[in-house]
């Protein structure tokens, strides 16, 4: 018996075999290629290390040990060293000098005036509060006096409540000055001069708020971390009174001790002596210390204070 084979089925099978076979062969030979990427160096730092970031700028160079300082003044770091330095010196405009002499002259002359002006506001509020409308009704001497100077009689309550307005003649000038001040503020400098103790033209890498430069807490905590590893704190019993012992230590540039640490405090009990000795041992055993070289002047001589608190 002849088996009837559908041609379409045959074709389908043949096609499937062909396609699958081709796929297998062609795919197996080709390896996936990845274009080589440029490597990017990434530093992972802890929040703790972030706190130790030096003062400087994001654009600064790592090699520069000190933050940028444009002028000598109280230390004041800047965020971005982009743009021109705008000195915030008093900007003297052409109009400004003119009013100044006037101000100097007028105070003397005008002094008699202010009292008058001051009187008015005191009386006016009374009137308004007692009787609101009728100014002219009352034949008050005060009212009369007010009438005489009728310049302001129907003052809006708001104005009346403003006594310091009086020196209006002068006001124009002071007004001018404040305007100038406002102008000056608006013309915010593109950046301010970075101030510091000594001039330095190269910016260091870091952040504007980096506290490391003048903060012993940073290298101090580095020292503490290291010395704690060697410190075998003696047990002082349940009720050891709190006390501290201080040492004078001098370090060399490589972090090793320049001389034996000297205890500043003296021990008054056997336990305090043991405690003091334990600190001394720790300082010696853990040297040399790895401390930021930039602040060598800070840590070349300092005073570690060992405290017997449990924490």
């Amino acid at each position, binding site marked *: 018996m002849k088996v009837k084979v559908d041609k379409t089925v045959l074709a389908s099978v043949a096609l499937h075999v062909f396609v699958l076979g081709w796929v297998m062969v062609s795919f197996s030979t080709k390896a996936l290629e990845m274009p080589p990427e440029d490597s990017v160096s990434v530093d992972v730092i802890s929040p703790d290390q972030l706190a130790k970031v030096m003062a400087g700028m994001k654009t600064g160079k790592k090699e520069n040990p000190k933050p940028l300082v444009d002028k000598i003044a109280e230390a004041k770091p800047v965020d971005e060293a982009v743009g021109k330095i705008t000195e915030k010196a008093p900007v003297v405009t052409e109009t400004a000098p003119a009013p100044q002499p006037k101000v100097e002259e007028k105070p003397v002359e005008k002094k008699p005036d202010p009292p008058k002006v001051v009187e008015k506001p005191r009386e006016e509020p009374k009137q308004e509060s007692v009787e609101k409308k009728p100014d002219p009704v009352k034949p008050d001497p005060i009212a009369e006096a007010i009438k005489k100077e009728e310049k302001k009689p129907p003052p809006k309550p708001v104005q009346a409540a403003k006594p310091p307005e009086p020196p209006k003649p002068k006001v124009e000038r002071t007004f001018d000055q404040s305007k100038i001040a406002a102008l000056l503020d608006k013309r915010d400098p593109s950046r301010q001069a970075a101030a510091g103790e000594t001039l330095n033209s190269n910016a260091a890498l870091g952040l504007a708020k980096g506290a490391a430069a003048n903060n*012993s*807490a940073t290298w*101090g905590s580095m*020292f*503490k971390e290291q*010395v*704690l590893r060697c*410190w*075998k*704190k*003696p*047990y*002082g*019993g*349940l*009720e050891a009174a709190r006390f*501290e012992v*201080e040492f*004078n230590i001098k370090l060399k540039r490589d972090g090793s001790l320049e001389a*034996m640490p000297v205890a*500043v*405090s003296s021990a008054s*009990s*056997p*336990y*305090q*002596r*043991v*405690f003091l*000795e*334990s*600190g*001394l*041992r720790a300082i*010696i*055993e853990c040297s040399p210390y790895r401390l930021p070289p930039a602040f060598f*002047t*800070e*840590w*070349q*001589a*300092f*005073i*570690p*204070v*060992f*405290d017997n*608190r*449990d*924490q």
Partner: protein
Amino acid sequence: MSREHKPTDATLRMDRRQLLSGLASTGLLLGSTRNSFGQARVPVTGGDVAPLPIAIPNFVAGTPGDAEVGAGVSQVITNNLKRSGLFAPIDPAAFIERIVDSDKAPQFQSWKQINAQALVTGRMTRQGDGRLKAEFRLWDVNTAQQLTGQQYFTSPEYWRRIAHIISDQIYERLTGEKGYFDSRVVFIDETGSKERRVKRLALMDQDGANVRYLTRGSDLVLTPRFSPSTQEITYMEFGQGDPRVYLFNIETGQREIVGNFPGMSFSPRFSPDGQRIIMSLQQGGNSNLFVMDLRSKSTTRLTDTPAIDTSPSYSPDGARICFESDRGGKPQIYVMPATGGGAQRISFGEGSYSTPVWSPRGDYIAFTKQGGGQFAIGIMKTDGSGERILTSGFHNEGPTFAPNGRVVMFFREPGGSGGPSLFTVDISGRNELRVPTPGFASDPAWSPLLS
């Protein structure tokens, strides 16, 4: 902070020192970070209380025959210091330098390398007259200085005792407190099955060595207590009739009944001068505290209440007595003058308090506290404040202080078929350790320092 700012003038420095200490004492300086010379003050706070790494190489043999005793002495010292929890003896396998002459300064660098902070060297030498000479030196490795050194002569069989004395010297120099290693413990040795337990009075060194049995175990003995000044022990023994308080001389083995009272006498303890014994006497359903002068045998009544007053213990100055009484309903701890009179209750916690014992330092009273199905060992200040539980469990009882008041020994019953054993714990609650005993052991009492 330039170098020019550093203090160079001696008088200036003195002034500053005084100023600093003055300010520090008033707390003004605690927050400041710089001194007047611009030097930064770097606070080093925290840090764990850590055992001190100490290296104890074998003591050098003065003559060829002394090598064994030299090794033994350093072994005993190592064990003592390690058990105190305040020292971390370094494994001798790590030692780089071999000490050959204990008179010469060691090479500190090689001890520094293995992180030793202290080093003990010594020598044992047998003398021509048969005695043993022991020398030791304690070195501070980091400062390369000798902290202390001493030599002793003794008969060869007491070499352990010498090792304990040296341990005390090291302990005192490095912790600032007196040691407690040269002391002994009297306890009740228990052998046999639970139903037919044999209880013997036994004596050993505080580290569990040199166990001696003082009684044969035919009579039941309880609550042995050391005399603070003589080689005597007082304890309670159940003889044919009522339990009685006995006095036992360790040297001669002699024993005698303390006083001749009708009824039961129990829970004896010596006064700090060793001249008197304070104890409880039963009177009907009550018991009261009495003190007896050992020389004149005269007896004085201290309490007179319709309650059970027991477990008296003197303060180290002999002026006051703490004891247990159920006059308030439940057993609690009371304190009264040593001459009797108004007693003040000092324990107010949950549960009941018993077996109070005054620390030789005078600062604490240790007790057994019962409540909630648990027996705990604790300490409190002598006014009842600052209660602190050191350990708690199925059954803990009978605290006794080490001579320096820093360690408490007690006995613990695990429950079930086992028996009791002795433990020590620091008064901070740390470093709980089992004391090795030949069999089961209970009712420990720590002796004063022998020397």
